[in-house]
């Protein structure tokens, strides 16, 4: 068959202690959108790194256009027509769009020519972008456009996209999909990595599913249900969270007109945020990354103080209290960044238990740490939340992202909070672990805790929240009950309408 663009034959790659890819073979046809599906740790990243020349396979072979393809480095891959948009952008905030793109090129053209090329590509593919804007002022969606245009300038035959929609609003997602469909119609193949199954059903022609490094199935997403695909990914059927508790108690947390200046040059100021959460209620706060989520969490955790009356718990002003005093009152938080914020990377899990639980779990006597008690609390978290680790003495950074997330969320939940605020509780966590974390949050709410979930995963918010609001540029939309909310309404709440009408008008 001569319409095969890239063929993978028996690719295998082992790391010490783990086989990341085991005999993976499949073909990508010219002009198709091919989905690569799998849980965290299934080997998707290793596979695309091999295709992009970042990692060399232990055995197996690749062909591109029928010829042997052995990229030794990303530059060689790009020269052969393979381009990749990474999940995390590598852009310099202080430089303009054109300067950033020039930095990634082997031989950048003159600045004026490059700006013209950028304008041409952005018009052709409906990706509105001004080459002279400073990247620090762009939204996440616009930054992604910079990365995409950087790839498109190389006229790739294969474009690899690693979880491109995790930072986008629904409207931005639909723009991206139109661009990808146009590319595919012009003959560019796209390898699309995601675990958002509905998106894959809408966009992709074929799907390859990886589990534990092996190719376990292929399917045609349009003809397969999301549930079937999820079960292929996980290897067993998993349960959706059970119905939520409905009897709400009194108001546990009240935020009234919370306004704070931006913490740094690229931070977001909080503007007049108000909401209440009742006991037993889950409030979901959506929004695209960088619209004040981190800042709101810091304001609630006490890392960032505010005027006392702006944050109240059970009718007591707590805005001026620090994190320790707020924990004493039962307000616990779980930040988004696991390593370095929620946990100290080089400290053991036991030491990381002391980090937030020192006082509530009575781990101190006269200022001295009772390490025995700290260890048994850490072990309780490990056991209750099924954290896969050799023991409580393991350094936090040695845990995989999902396991560490289960640990840091579990650490807060086991402290029996009255109010729990979490940011991106299931970010980068595989489906089974994510379901377990969501269930634990719902159970906690059922026991009478008030819960605020800040997340960019709309499916997650709709699944577990009672009411929904969205952050946009540091402002909070009106808060509406989740029942009866349409995806268009949510998009508008997220402020996604901004900058959209230009595209595909």
């Amino acid at each position, binding site marked *: 068959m001569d319409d095969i663009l890239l063929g993978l034959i028996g690719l295998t790659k082992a790391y010490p202690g783990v086989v990341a890819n085991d005999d993976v073979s499949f073909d990508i046809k010219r002009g198709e959108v091919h989905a690569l599906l799998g849980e965290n740790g299934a080997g998707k990243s290793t596979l695309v790194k091999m295709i992009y*020349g970042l990692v060399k396979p232990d055995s197996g072979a690749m062909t591109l256009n029928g010829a042997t393809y052995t990229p030794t480095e990303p530059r060689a891959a790009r020269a052969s027509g393979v381009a990749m948009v990474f999940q995390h952008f590598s852009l310099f905030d202080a430089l303009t769009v054109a300067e950033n793109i020039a930095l990634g090129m082997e031989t950048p053209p003159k600045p004026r020519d490059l700006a013209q090329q950028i304008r041409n590509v952005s018009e052709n593919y409906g990706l509105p972008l001004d080459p002279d804007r400073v990247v620090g002022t762009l939204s996440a969606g616009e930054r992604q456009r910079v990365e995409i245009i950087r790839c498109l300038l190389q006229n790739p035959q294969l474009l690899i996209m690693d979880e491109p929609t995790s930072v986008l609003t629904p409207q931005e997602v639909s723009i991206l999909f139109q661009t990808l469909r146009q590319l595919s119609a012009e003959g560019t193949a796209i390898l699309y990595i995601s675990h958002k199954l509905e998106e894959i059903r809408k966009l992709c022609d074929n799907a390859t599913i990886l589990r534990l490094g092996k190719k376990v199935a292929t399917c045609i997403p349009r003809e397969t249900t999301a549930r079937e695909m999820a079960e292929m990914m996980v290897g067993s059927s998993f349960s959706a969270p059970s119905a939520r508790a409905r009897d709400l108690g009194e108001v546990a947390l009240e935020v009234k007109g919370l306004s704070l200046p931006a913490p740094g040059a690229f931070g977001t100021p909080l503007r007049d945020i108000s909401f209440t959460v009742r006991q037993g209620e889950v409030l979901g706060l959506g929004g695209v990354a960088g619209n004040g989520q981190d800042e709101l969490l810091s304001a609630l955790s006490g890392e960032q103080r505010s005027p006392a009356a702006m944050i109240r718990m059970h009718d007591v002003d707590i805005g001026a209290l620090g994190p320790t005093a707020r924990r004493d009152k039962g307000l616990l938080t779980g930040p988004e960044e696991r390593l370095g914020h929620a946990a*100290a990377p080089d400290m053991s899990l036991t030491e990381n238990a002391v980090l937030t639980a020192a006082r509530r779990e009575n781990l101190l006597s006269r200022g001295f740490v009772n390490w025995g008690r700290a260890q048994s609390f850490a072990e309780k978290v490990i056991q209750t939340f099924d954290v896969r680790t050799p023991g409580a003495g393991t350094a936090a950074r040695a845990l995989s992202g999902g396991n560490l997330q289960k640990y840091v969320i579990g650490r807060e939940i086991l402290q029996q909070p009255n109010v729990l605020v979490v940011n991106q509780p299931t970010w980068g966590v595989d489906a089974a672990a994510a379901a377990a974390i969501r269930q634990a949050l719902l159970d906690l709410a059922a026991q009478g805790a008030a819960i605020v979930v800040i997340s960019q995963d709309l499916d997650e918010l709709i699944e577990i929240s009672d009411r929904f609001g969205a952050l946009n540029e540091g402002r909070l939309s009106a808060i509406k009950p989740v029942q009866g909310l349409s995806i268009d309404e949510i998009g508008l709440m997220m402020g996604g309408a901004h900058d959209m009408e230009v595209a595909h008008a």
Partner: protein
Amino acid sequence: MIRLEKRPQPSKIWTVMTPVLAVFLTMIIGGVMFAILGKPPLEAIRTIFWDPLFNAQFASYTRPQLLVKAGPLILIAIGLSIGFRAGIWNIGAEGQYIMGAIFGAAAGLAFYPSDSFLIFPLMIMAGAFGGFVWAMIPAILRTAFRTNEILVSLMLVYVAEAVLASVSQNLLRNPEGMGFPGSRNLSQWDASANREIIANSGMHWGVLTAFVAVIFAYVLMTRHIQGFNIRLTGEAPRAARFAGVMPARIVIFCLGLSGMLAGMAGLFEVAGPAGQISIDFNSGYGFTAIIVAFLGRLHPVGILLAGLLMALTYIGGELAQLMLGVPGASIQLFQGMLLFFLLATDVFINFRLRIGQAEAA
């Protein structure tokens, strides 16, 4: 092809092994250096590392010197190590050491020639206070104006040296000293002398304080929440703020404590081995203690051993100057090499060496 691979966890073995490896590399390269200088390398190494302890001819003099030199190094390094664990870089212990000596000596001399037994304890407190005050300058500037404590504390060393020169010629000059600069000799005045606790052992009150400081630091860093907060601040500042640690308090605590210990070291020195405040009183203990702190892995027990080792290079170096005529600067070179090799071999704590086929790119 040789390459480095990141370890999933820091290696415990290498944490202990790198100082030993650094000492060996220093010996080897030091030997090469002596050979180039035309001195017999093995003999030079032996004179530095072996003779001070075991040579029948010198050991009775040099062995007590080991504790005399190690005492201040350990005391200062313990204070520095606590700040270093929090990422607070007090480079100016030398200045705090000088100010401690001046404050302590002044407090004693104010009561000359009383023979009250309270004078020596008063001097210790005054010495600690002097070092504390000098360290509070970078601490307050950092917390209030976000200045860099490395630069401020370092520059204050030179200010302290100027103060030292001034007081030894004016304020604290011995009125019976026939106009020579320098204070009265504190070690010859009963009430102020920092005596040996055990005769001819070198064990004076400052050495005892250093040992107590080792135990105190060990308990603080491993058992107490304040020690935990200090380590947390150093390893993950954002996590520390999340845990409720106030960064400003940690800065004040760490700089204050290291200043106090350096000030006490200065007082014990001026009231004992040095005897008097003079223009050239300070001898670089405050800077060498930085090497001691790192060589000891910022761990109290490690610092104890590193302090003794560094004292050995001081004494052995002097001996080598005397016996073999090696230049005085070669000892400083030796100490510098020790830190250099330690930092260089430290990479093995977090990385392992792989020799063989390379990965793509």
